[in-house]
């Protein structure tokens, strides 16, 4: 049977989007936090909380839309702890981030055990919103214009964040909160509020990314299912250095390489699997390192802000 049919190629591209979308949402969120000076290592935990809550809400209500909302809310809830401990109390961002991830991993595994470990419920197929007549274009239509609402939202978010960062006072305030928080404070802007809003938004986006994984990409929740995507998103955000479009490129380059590895294996290319599996990581890091070598990270990234401190 011929391998590279339109159906197979379409599925590969859809797979790339499904794999890239959680990274895009979480990566955009992480970029926002980093802009404001908070290194959000707890991203993995926020994604996992979103994956669990998103699945539970979607499964219990029968509504994928409510599932996505539930996932975003759960991510924001975990992020509120990050706000409390890191932004308000000034504790170490890396330690708290790791602690939150471990807490959520244990908690979601326990909840899954209690609720689902004997039944493993699974959702029906994902609902899409075709954009007529573009969705009828062969090959491209089903890939780009017959997608879930979260995909359209994620793409719009890239443009939205680019506009905020470049064109608005909020963007300038975020930049200042990450580079010169003391100067921003002197200018009369509440640094705590800016950083808190940034971290909460990050949590919501990471939670939405996690919910996308469980509700749309997998249709099931299993413990630890985010599988390091939060950490990959952190790397993407750091390498993208403040540019949302680069997060988009990195996320879908990663997803595309994952699909390419599947295509190579299914085609029977006799290369060691480890080499093929390295492709997504190596490609994304190489591209972003070369493209982003002149950019820089916020000067106060990872540092707590204490009003009046020198």
């Amino acid at each position, binding site marked *: *049977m011929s*391998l590279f*049919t339109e*159906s*197979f190629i*379409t*599925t*590969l591209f*859809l*797979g790339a989007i*499904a*794999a890239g979308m*959680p990274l895009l949402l979480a990566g955009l969120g992480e970029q926002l936090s980093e802009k404001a000076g908070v290194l959000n290592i707890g991203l993995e935990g926020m994604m996992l909380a979103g994956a669990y809550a998103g699945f539970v809400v979607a499964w219990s209500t029968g509504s994928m839309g409510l599932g996505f909302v539930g996932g975003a809310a759960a991510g924001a809830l975990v992020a509120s702890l990050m706000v409390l401990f890191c932004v308000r109390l000034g504790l170490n961002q890396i330690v708290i981030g790791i602690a939150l991830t471990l807490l959520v991993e244990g908690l979601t*595994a326990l909840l*899954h*055990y209690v609720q689902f*470990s*004997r*039944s*493993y419920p*699974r*959702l*029906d*197929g994902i609902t899409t919103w075709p954009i007529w007549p573009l969705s009828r274009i062969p090959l491209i239509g089903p890939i780009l214009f017959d997608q879930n609402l979260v995909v359209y939202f994620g793409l719009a978010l890239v443009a939205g964040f680019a506009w905020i960062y470049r064109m608005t006072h909020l963007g300038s305030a975020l930049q200042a909160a990450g580079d010169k928080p003391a100067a921003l404070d002197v200018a009369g802007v509440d640094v705590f509020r800016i950083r808190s809003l940034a971290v909460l938004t990050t949590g919501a986006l990471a939670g939405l990314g996690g919910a996308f*994984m*469980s509700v749309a*990409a*997998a*249709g*099931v*929740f*299993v*413990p*630890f*299912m985010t*599988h390091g995507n939060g950490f990959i998103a952190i790397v993407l955000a750091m390498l993208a250095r403040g540019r949302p479009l680069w997060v988009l490129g990195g996320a879908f380059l990663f997803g595309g390489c*994952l*699909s390419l590895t*599947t*295509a190579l*294996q*299914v085609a*029977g290319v*006799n290369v*060691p*699997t*480890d080499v*093929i*599996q390295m492709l997504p990581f190596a490609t994304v890091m190489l591209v972003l390192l070369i493209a982003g070598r002149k950019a820089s990270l916020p000067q106060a990234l990872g540092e707590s802000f204490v009003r009046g401190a020198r």
Partner: protein
Amino acid sequence: MKKTIITTVSRTALALALGWSASAALAGEIDSIAILAPEMGTDMGWNQQGVDAAKAAGAATGVEVVVAENLGYGDVRPTMRELAGDGADLLIAHASGYNTAAPEIGAEMGVPVAIVDSPDKLAAGTIADYTASGSDGAYLAGRLAAKMTRTKVVGIVVSGEPPSWNNMSVAFAEGVKAENPAVEVRYAVIGPAAYSDAAGGKRVTEAVIASGADIIFGEGNGSSFGMLQAVETTPAVDGGKAYFIDVIGDKTSIDKGFLLSSVVWDLTPVYTAMINDLKAGTYGSHNYDINLADGSLHLLKTANIPDDVWASVQEIQAQVASGAIVVEKKYDADSVHAMVTTVEAN
């Protein structure tokens, strides 16, 4: 000088006495065993089969079983020390990732250990391996898949390439080839050790189905739920149902009509034999395996398999069990890739 000789002799005698008493205790007094599993013992796969089998073996032999589950794939040395300190007479390290730590802690705490994927570490009285080879069952699954496929393409999706899964992948492809050389076998790995990547399992399985496969042989712990979800939501290229063949566990209770079969492992005879060997003082004299003959390895019958097909698979099973058909055990990834390519080239 005299004092030194007396001290040396005394210490030697004491060491021999302690060694003898430890050996005697090892040989006779087996009160409890412990099993350490990386994920919850409710995954309908590797972890559940291990935990359930340990409990069953304990019940059969009158030995208490302590279960430490959901331990992850990191450093489990502290947990092993705690279990050994609490009096476990055997530590079953139920993950290939534990086969470095377990012998270390076993030696440190003086407790025998059971490990997987390291048969060369066999040591009298202290270490035994139970790298279960499900190849005979996977061969039967391959014969079944080749009989049942409508598109003449079947797929293998795995979340990693540990030896025991390579062993089954090769055997499955051999079974397909033996039944019908014209059937193509397509193979894909989700990711490096992506055991819990359900989304990845679904994504890769969808791609393999889109490539033409209507039967998926999936090996993947938590990610296998994503594979199952993929066959439930993705029709085969001919518009009909795609089917799933699972490994190790039995997902019949959650099946929505897409589970074709499973290569089921029952480790109860393995753990029971370990306990009996400990009691007899022969632990570590040999490794352990599963097989079709004693039922520790079997192919699951579901309603999706027609009776005539099942009857012919049963005939093949009898030939495998009797040795008329020999399925060679191969554990390396290269053998899998070569087998898949060979089958695909036909």
